[in-house]
Structure formats: C-alpha cells, structure tokens
C-alpha cells in the first residue's frame, strides 16, 4: 500500500518492518526445526514400517479413497489460506475473515476424519501399543495432527483478533506467521500421504 507520509512515520514504519522481518524470519527458523523433528519421525517410521509383530500391515489397514479425500481437503485449505492472505494485503476484512473461516472449516474436517481413522484403528485392536509399525505410525501422523490442532486454535484466536482489532500491525504480522504455519503443515502432509499411505499400500 502506498500513501504519502511524514518522515517520522516513514522512520517508525521502517523500524516496525525491520522488527517484523526478524520475527517472521525467526518463525521460519522455528519451522525449519519442526522439519527436522518430522524428518526424524519419518526416519523412525521408515525403519519400523514392516515391524508389524504379526499384526496387520499398512496395506491391510489404510483406505486409499479416504486418505485421498483427507489430502484434498487439507490441500484446499492451504490454498484458501493463501487467498485469505491476499485479502489481508488488500485490507479486505470481510473477505479475509470468510477465507480464514473456510480454511479452518476444512482443517476441522481433516482433523475429524483423522480422529475417526485413529479411533477406528484402536477399536479394531490396532493401537500404537500393538507393534513398532503402529507406534511409529501414530507418533508421526499424530504429531502432524497435534500441529493441525494447534493451528486451528491459533486460527480461531486470530479470526477473533481480526474481527475486533482490524488490520493492526500485530494482527497482520501474526496472520502472516499463521499462514506460513498452515502451508508448512500441508507440505508435511504431502510426505505423509506419499510415504505412509501410498507406499504403504504397495508394501514397498
């Protein structure tokens, strides 16, 4: 956005932007450490994926169509989150709120589907206690689900803040961080979808 300004305003704005860019970079560094965390969970899963202890394996347990729907829902929510940020930069409050609401709704649907999958597995006797494979599966996918849960809570809080305070500097900055977080979670899911579910279905 371009508007005429006094020298004092420009200076203050520049300081704020500098502080913002450090915060945003700092959050990005945190996301990079989260990647290392997920990578270690993936490596663990890779090692234990065939340790089914005589129980059911990935190809027995996972439903491909179900997981495809989950994947499409999360992907769409990441896309809509991008549109929400466009609305933020355009200072369109109504559009931003609606877009974040849709993002959150899709995220909640994803989470609901995942929780259903987990409860179904446990009720069938395939909990994380049963084998190394299942331990690794629940830890990896569950950690991602925990991140989604936190992201949804954050999104709820941010929608309230946006509604009440409008596009303040802090709100805009925090929405930027939230959208980074949300995109990151969809990226991690790409790898869960590929390595756990797709490769699991083929017993590779």
């Amino acid at each position, binding site marked *: 956005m371009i508007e005429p300004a006094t020298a004092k305003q420009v200076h203050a704005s520049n300081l704020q932007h500098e502080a913002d860019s450090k915060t945003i970079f700092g959050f990005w560094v945190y996301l990079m*450490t989260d990647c*290392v965390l997920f990578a270690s969970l993936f490596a663990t899963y890779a090692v234990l994926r065939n340790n089914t202890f005589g129980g059911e394996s990935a190809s027995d347990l996972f439903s491909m169509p179900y997981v495809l729907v989950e994947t499409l829902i999360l992907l769409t929510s990441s896309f809509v989150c991008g549109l929400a940020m466009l609305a933020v930069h355009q200072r369109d409050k109504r559009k931003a709120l609606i877009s974040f609401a849709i993002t959150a709704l899709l995220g909640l649907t994803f989470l609901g589907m995942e929780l259903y999958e987990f409860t179904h597995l446990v009720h069938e006797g395939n909990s994380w206690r049963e084998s190394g494979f299942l331990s690794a599966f629940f830890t990896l996918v569950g950690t991602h689900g925990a991140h989604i849960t936190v992201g949804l809570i954050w999104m709820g809080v941010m929608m309230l803040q946006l509604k009440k305070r409008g596009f303040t500097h802090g709100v805009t900055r925090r929405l930027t961080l939230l959208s980074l977080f949300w995109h990151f979670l969809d990226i991690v899911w790409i*790898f869960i979808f590929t390595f756990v579910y797709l490769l699991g279905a083929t017993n590779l």
Partner: protein
Amino acid sequence: MSKTVITSQHSTARGTHRSYVIGFVLSLLFTFIPYVLVTQGLVSGAALALLLVGFALAQLLVQLKFFIHLGHENGPRWNAVAFLFMVLVVGIVVVGSLWIMHNLNYNMMPNDMDHYMNEQQNSGGF
C-alpha cells in the same frame, strides 16, 4: 516539496491470485497422478517408489514457490538459506539413521546354531 511514501518491505514475499491458483492446480495434479499410479497398479517396484518420491518432491517445490514464495523476498534470501541448511541437517539425520539401522538390523540378526557355526569362518561386515 516531495512527498515521502511508505513502501512495504517484506521478509516474506507476496503472492498473486494467479500464483495460488497455479500452485493449487499443480498440487492437485501431483496428488492425483501418484494416487492413480498406486490404486490402478500401473507401475510397481522401484520404479513406482521413484515416481512417488519424485511427485512428492515436485509438489514440495510447487508449494514452496507458489504458496510460500520462498526465494522471492526482497533483500538477502535468508529464508532460502535457512531452508537449505535444514535440508542438509535432515539429509544427515535421515540417511545416517537409515544406514545405521540397516546395519544394526543385519549385524544383530539372530542365527540358528548351524548357521552360527558356519558364520564363524566368514568375516563380518555389511
């Protein structure tokens, strides 16, 4: 008398509507193709594994570029540098872990007695 303007500096780059749509469509494509490959059984074995990994990496790059806009920010690209360093650390952790665990798996495998007696003659190693 000139007016000063506030221009926004961003440490994250911004997208356009177009970039998000392109990213979305490509991601959909890179999701459906692997899905069909697996569920229709069109490819198998190492070829399938390579293709799946390939499409996952492709979708990663698509989302990094079109959703996160990595590398498009103003000024020094510290985001991109941090990302590359993460890739290095992940490479070391994952490859190292898989190598070590594979090694342990092989070397710690229990043998039956006859096999053990024969093994005494041979050298160990991976």
